[in-house]
């Protein structure tokens, strides 16, 4: 048993729903108790989809358990077919139905429906949402494209003069910016003159999946969802796959070169995009204040690795921590962590992430909806880079993460939460200014910025008495402070500490205390504070 306050991923059948809801003419019959229908609201409320997910739930109750839940399933499946007339169906069980072992696959087969029915085995007590999505897509592709697998030894050939065509695999319902990423990638491929054969699962029909094998290669946009299916296609149809995810200018250029090579076209028309501004923005002088900003990154593996690369190589930040909740893709994150010389955090325990953020005291958190709340509580700016997310993360406007326009969006959304350059300097210079007190958030954040306790406003008067919590400008982290033996602070040192900007003050305090403890200094004076500053100075 695992104590869980918040969960990063839903159960695996939610992943299957993300595939079914993305597709057209596919219906999912889910053996599940009443209550599991809550999942519909993820799509209709959080993503604001105008249609119900194509899912029929059996919604069995306790009284059915003594009777015939299997019959209930068959009735639901038959009625669903008659009402929705899909091209194909998927059937499976949620966590509770898995325990009663009714075998939805066998039951559905017994109905002899005139369409392909794919039975899903999604172990709810071992696996989670992304795995469920990947498994569902894989099973669908295998079943539907399987009949057209060529005999072994057949070589792929493209007719002379015929432009290359590719499939784009991965975009789902309830995906983080999938709709917008797809548009960017679509445009990139158009500029290169590469045809798009099938996009799946988003807006694909089962018939579309059946003809996946006709394309020349596959683009894996979201490996968490599409990698198993793409590997199967590679094995059976000899289709090469593009695994580079075009997030950031560097990765986008790599992506362009990679697909251009596979399609045998000139990459140049796509490489120089006049709309690409993020590189110049990062180079412009006002951006110097971004240098070395300490960033903590957490999300699904693909987005976390990509975000770390962008902030370190394209924005000049420092990655102080990186992690993921997806154990299936932990290796990529471990490799990235090595690159930045930090300890990877592989966990789906929200409390572990919170503890790490509190310990690292970064200046910016790039994370999920969960990290947004952790950051808010700790008074640290934050931007979202990955699912899980909330309704405001499905913007009405075009806001991709991929391609050159995606890189522009990343620059805007990741830099925006930070204190603007000159403002940071002024804040540093005029600590006593009545409008620049600790309680004042960056002016561009309005009232939504971090709000330290009210008494911190009178910094002069309360500086000495202010408790640690107030001095860090945030609610006290619920994490033990660690094994540090805390030295006493002389009043004037305490006062001096208050002059350090609140967003780095926690770090300064810790460093000074560590410095003092290591040297056996019992009383921290102003001298100790500056000795420590010189010692740890970055």
């Amino acid at each position: 048993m695992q104590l869980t306050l918040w969960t990063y991923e839903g159960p695996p059948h939610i992943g299957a729903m993300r595939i079914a809801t993305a597709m057209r003419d596919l219906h999912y019959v889910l053996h599940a108790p009443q209550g599991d229908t809550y999942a519909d609201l993820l799509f209709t409320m959080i993503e604001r989809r105008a249609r119900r997910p194509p899912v029929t739930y059996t919604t069995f109750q306790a009284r059915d358990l003594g009777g015939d839940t299997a019959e209930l399933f068959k009735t639901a499946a038959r009625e669903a077919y008659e009402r929705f007339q899909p091209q194909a169906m998927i059937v499976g069980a949620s966590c509770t139905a898995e325990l009663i072992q009714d075998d939805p696959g066998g039951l559905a087969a017994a109905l002899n429906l005139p369409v392909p029915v794919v039975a899903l085995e999604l172990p709810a007590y071992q696996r989670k949402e992304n795995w469920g999505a990947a498994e569902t897509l894989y099973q669908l592709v295998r079943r539907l494209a399987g009949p057209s697998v060529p005999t072994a030894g057949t070589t792929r050939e493209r007719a002379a003069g015929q432009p290359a065509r590719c499939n784009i695999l991965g975009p789902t319902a309830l995906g983080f910016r999938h709709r917008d990423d797809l548009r960017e990638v679509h445009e990139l491929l158009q500029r290169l003159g590469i045809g798009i054969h099938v996009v799946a699962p988003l807006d694909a029909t089962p018939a579309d999946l059946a003809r996946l094998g006709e394309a020349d290669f596959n683009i894996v946009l979201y490996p968490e969802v599409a990698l198993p299916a793409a590997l199967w296609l590679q094995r059976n149809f000899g289709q090469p796959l593009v695994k580079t995810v075009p997030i950031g200018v560097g990765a986008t250029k790599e992506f362009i070169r990679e697909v251009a090579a596979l399609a045998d076209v000139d990459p140049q028309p796509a490489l120089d995009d006049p709309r690409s501004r993020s590189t110049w923005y990062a180079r412009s002088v006002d951006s110097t204040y971004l240098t070395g900003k300490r960033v903590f990154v957490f999300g699904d593996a693909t987005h976390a690795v990509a975000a770390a690369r962008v902030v370190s190589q394209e924005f000049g930040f420092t990655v102080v921590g990186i992690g993921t909740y997806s154990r299936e893709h932990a290796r990529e994150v471990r490799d990235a962590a090595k690159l930045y010389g930090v300890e990877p955090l592989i966990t789906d325990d929200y409390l572990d992430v919170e503890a790490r953020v509190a310990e690292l005291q970064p200046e910016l958190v790039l994370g999920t909806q969960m990290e947004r709340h952790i950051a808010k509580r700790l008074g640290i700016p934050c931007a979202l880079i990955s699912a899980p997310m909330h309704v405001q993360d499905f913007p009405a406007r075009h806001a991709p993460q991929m391609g050159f326009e995606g890189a522009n969006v990343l620059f805007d959304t990741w830099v925006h939460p930070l204190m603007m350059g000159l403002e940071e300097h002024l804040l540093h210079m005029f600590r006593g200014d009545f409008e620049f007190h600790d309680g004042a958030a960056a002016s561009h954040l309005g009232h939504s910025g971090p709000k330290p306790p009210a008494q911190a406003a009178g910094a002069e008067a309360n500086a000495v008495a202010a408790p640690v919590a107030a001095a860090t400008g945030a609610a006290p982290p619920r994490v033990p402070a660690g094994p540090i033996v805390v030295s006493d602070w002389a009043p004037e040192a305490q006062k001096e500490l208050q002059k350090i900007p609140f967003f780095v003050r926690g770090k300064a305090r810790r460093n000074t205390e560590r410095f003092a403890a290591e040297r056996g200094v019992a009383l921290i004076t102003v001298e100790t504070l500056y000795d420590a500053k010189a010692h740890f100075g970055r």
Partner: protein
Amino acid sequence: MTSRVIELQPQAASGCGQANVLRERGQREVFCGLTGIVWLHRKIQDAFFLVVGSRTCAHLIQSAAGVMIFAEPRFATAIIDERDLAGLADAQDELDRVVARLLERRGDIRTLFLVGSCPSEVIKLDLSRAALRLSQRFAPQVRVLNYSGSGIETTFTQGEDACLASLVPGLPASNETSLVVVGALADVVEDQFARLLAQVGVRNVGFLPARHSDAMPAVGANTRYLLAQPFLADTARMLENRGARRIAAPFPLGVEGTTRWLQAAAAAFGIGAEVVEQVTASARTRAEAALARQRQALQGKSIFFFPDSQLEPPLARFLSRELGMRLTEVGTPYLHREHLAEELALLPASVRLSEGQHVEKQLDRCRAERPDIVVCGLGLANPLEAEGLTTKWAIELVFTPIQGYEQAADLAELFARPLRRRELLAA
């Protein structure tokens, strides 16, 4: 503007009483009882709710709660994993470990509810045994109780019923004459009712649940209880077992419902209707004036209820009698005929009541009916809006203070707003 107290006995000839009820079986588009945790954990301020269930349960609650509104909520899930199922780990030992970790973090907790789920019920994990053992271990600091919020046994608000029922055996005993108001109410509503009942002259009034674990009301043979919510069948039964007797009344929604509810309570203690009339006069006048404004928007408009909270019959009664709305279908997940007798008598005979659900067939009926407004769950609301229907999320009716005089117009406004909005956006 003066108002007259409504007759206590409804006209015998009217009402839909035992009229035909459409009973359906099929897909039920409803929440399970775990959802009640979202408001119960705010109501009982020193209680923690630990769901013993699957990742689905955890995902449900955080999705229903709108995800993380609170810094650290007083609910969590102990997620059962394959080791527990394979018997590699003793589930009871695991539960002890999780509870110990939890209580270590939260020294402020006085009542811990172990909440059963679909998976814990199916594998027959004995939470009552766990609750007893853990209660002994953590007494007197923490009392550990258990109830089931599983979808196989409870629909949405029935989770509150199960929770309150689990509190009843532990309520202090008393033979004093007393009134217990049963059902979680917003604090502001509870305070209003406490004031009104005191002014009417009812002594010894308690509320179940109370805001703190040490303030739960006493109960005994001279206790009368008054339901504030229509979904409390099990809690009522447990209270009867302790000797308490129910005061039959409609529910305190709208001016009429609130007045009849207070009158029934007063009558049970030998206090006349004229006292209630006197005490409530100004509040009624105020509420009726506020309702008159909403009536302009709602009069003659048709409404269709999908089943959700069991609040549907009293809501329908309020909307039809006080606001002049036309009822088409009133769906409810479960119709408790005894507790709703007074409500059913007040409903127009033309209403189509439905119990249970076959969501596809019900959607067909709803589309055919083209009502002016549809009350439905979150999964259906946007799709119906996209089809051109106007909707009201049912869950808001459970999360919002709607009972009593001062909230009557707020309740009406919840239905008027989507209609007004549609007009605004069309303009």
